């Protein structure tokens, strides 16, 4: 993945020898067993049917994909599931933008901090990972609920507002939960790029008369682009499929695609349809990935 986004192409320069292959074997086996095989199973299931008990019946059908893309009553393009997809993309997109706006300056600050302090700052970014994200999400519920910490602080102590404020179980809470969970995934790759950035190039830009905006736009941004692209992918993709946070903090009133897929497997006994929805996401990811890496290559050339 790293090779495709950012790091200059090295293939062709050296083919891996026997030792190289041997060292790669665990990784390749892991990929084959836990990425390629499950995806293939999903692909096969997505064209299958199901019986009364929800067991997969191996009989070919397009029905699952038709259900995703077409309205069952009118037969026209557009369905509930596309609406759900669109909403999930909206949530994921908003999360990514906020993470970028908040995370980039943080990454920049850490990357430019004195060397001794950098590790401390990075540790601070990573400390939340020491606790399970589910527990951290439940902590947010405690903070945001009507009788929660924030509301009782605002109402009882500061008397800023008279009535508790409705925060939990709203779209805003969902985005907050997603940003909170995925922010480090943006900070870390951007930090990697910022740290590698040669400061003399920035100085040169200033010496040649560029203002701060221009130096940022023409020098800093292109040089940190690999980190930004990696960060965007690392935030956008998991937040699109996330179901636990959206359900816990959104109350499940506006289902996201992750929740709908989960339902197919756990409640509706419809694995083939769940698989078809999953494959659609895989396809979407492939498109996003292809677009970003193409843009990346174009920029490098």
């Amino acid at each position, binding site marked *: 993945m790293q090779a495709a986004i950012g790091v200059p192409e090295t293939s062709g320069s050296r083919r891996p020898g*026997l030792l190289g292959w041997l060292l790669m074997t665990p990784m390749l086996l892991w990929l084959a067993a836990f990425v390629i095989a499950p995806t293939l199973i999903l692909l096969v299931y997505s064209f299958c049917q199901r019986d009364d*008990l929800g067991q997969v019946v191996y009989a070919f059908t397009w029905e699952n994909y038709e259900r995703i893309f077409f309205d069952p009553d009118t037969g026209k393009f557009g369905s*509930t599931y596309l609406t759900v997809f669109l909403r999930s993309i909206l949530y994921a997109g908003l999360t990514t933008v906020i993470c970028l706006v908040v995370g980039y300056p943080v990454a920049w600050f850490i990357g430019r901090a004195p060397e001794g302090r950098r590790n401390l700052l990075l540790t601070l970014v990573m400390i939340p990972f020491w606790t399970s994200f589910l527990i951290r999400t439940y902590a947010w519920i405690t903070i945001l609920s009507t009788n*929660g910490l924030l509301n009782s602080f605002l109402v009882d102590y500061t008397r800023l507002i008279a009535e508790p404020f409705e925060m939990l179980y709203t779209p805003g809470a969902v985005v907050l939960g997603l940003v909170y969970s995925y922010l480090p995934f943006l900070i870390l790759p951007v930090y990697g790029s910022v740290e590698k950035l040669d400061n003399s190039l920035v100085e040169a830009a200033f010496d040649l008369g560029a203002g701060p905006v221009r130096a940022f736009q023409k020098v800093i941004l292109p040089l940190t682009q690999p980190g930004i692209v990696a960060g965007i992918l690392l935030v956008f993709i998991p937040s699109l499929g996330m179901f636990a946070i959206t359900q816990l903090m959104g109350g*499940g*009133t506006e289902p996201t695609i992750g929740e709908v897929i989960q339902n197919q497997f756990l409640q509706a006994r419809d694995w083939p349809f769940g698989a078809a929805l999953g494959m659609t996401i895989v396809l979407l990811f492939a498109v996003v990935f292809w677009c970003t890496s193409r843009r990346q290559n174009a920029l490098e050339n």
Partner: protein
Amino acid sequence: MKTTRLLVALALLVTALPTYGQAKKKQVLNLFCWSEYVPQSVIDGFTKETGIKVNVENYASNEEMLSKLLAGGSNYDLVQPSEYTVEALIKVDKLEPLNFEAIPNIKNIDPKYMKLPFDPEGKYSVPWMVGTVGIVVNTAKVKTPITGYKDVFDGTHKRRIVVLNDAREIVTWALATVGVSANDLTPENLEKAKPILANWLPQVKVYDSDSPKTALLNGDVDLGIVWSGEAAILWKKNKKFTYVLPAEGAHQFIDSLAIPKGAPNKENAEKFINYILKPEVSVLVSEDFPYTNPNAEAVKLLKPEQRANPASYPTGEPKLETFKDIGKAAKDIDVLVTDLKAAKKKK
């Protein structure tokens, strides 16, 4: 050369592994049960008494259990299906008939919970806990009387309601208000439920099957349609949370224990069933999960406070109905509810 030697070593290691496993083999029981339903104290007590080690695996819905069991390749000895799943498993011949000679404590079970329609001869299942789905009212906030689903969704409690995130439950409630049985899910009847749900669902603030009590406790909602066990815990914490069985009719579920076909340790599973049927063990379950205990002898041992809990032991003559397996209709219900939830935003 070095690689060959490495491969030989690896091969030896791989062949040695199974023997190692067998050498350590002792009496085990592979229990596949709901998460948060079998207290650890019960499992420890069983191991202490019989020396049988219990391997626990959890599931979060009947459907999850069903699909894992039907997929095969598993070696579960004991599962914990609800009544309609027992029925489905009997239908496809996936349950072992129980040997009741090994389960003498079955005599403790109240006869009204035995030989129910999902297992008419009482051959395959033993009831674990019985519960209902009803309405919890925060009486500190809601002053008008609530007697049924219609009162919950009369429009005055908009966005103050938590309901189970379970399509079949939700559809059942809507159908109850027009007098249709929970098991009569024909397309025509679902069509009847549609306008009702289109009115109801936008009023819901939270969908939560795992812990609907949280939203009620935190004050985020004032009303809930939840499992009776959740309601019982709320009442235990604060008496302002009352439990009402809807006048239109309520869903009663019977979570049972059953042994899957071909279970490797059937005798151990029967020993476990017999163990949990002891009154003094059964009360431990009631302590943690205050559903209705079908064990008549255990109920006698409960504290008066536990027996007075209106959610665990409802009084009066409520209209109750158990679920039957609905097969393919599970999909139609999911489509209906997903559609309506998504449609909410379109307006």
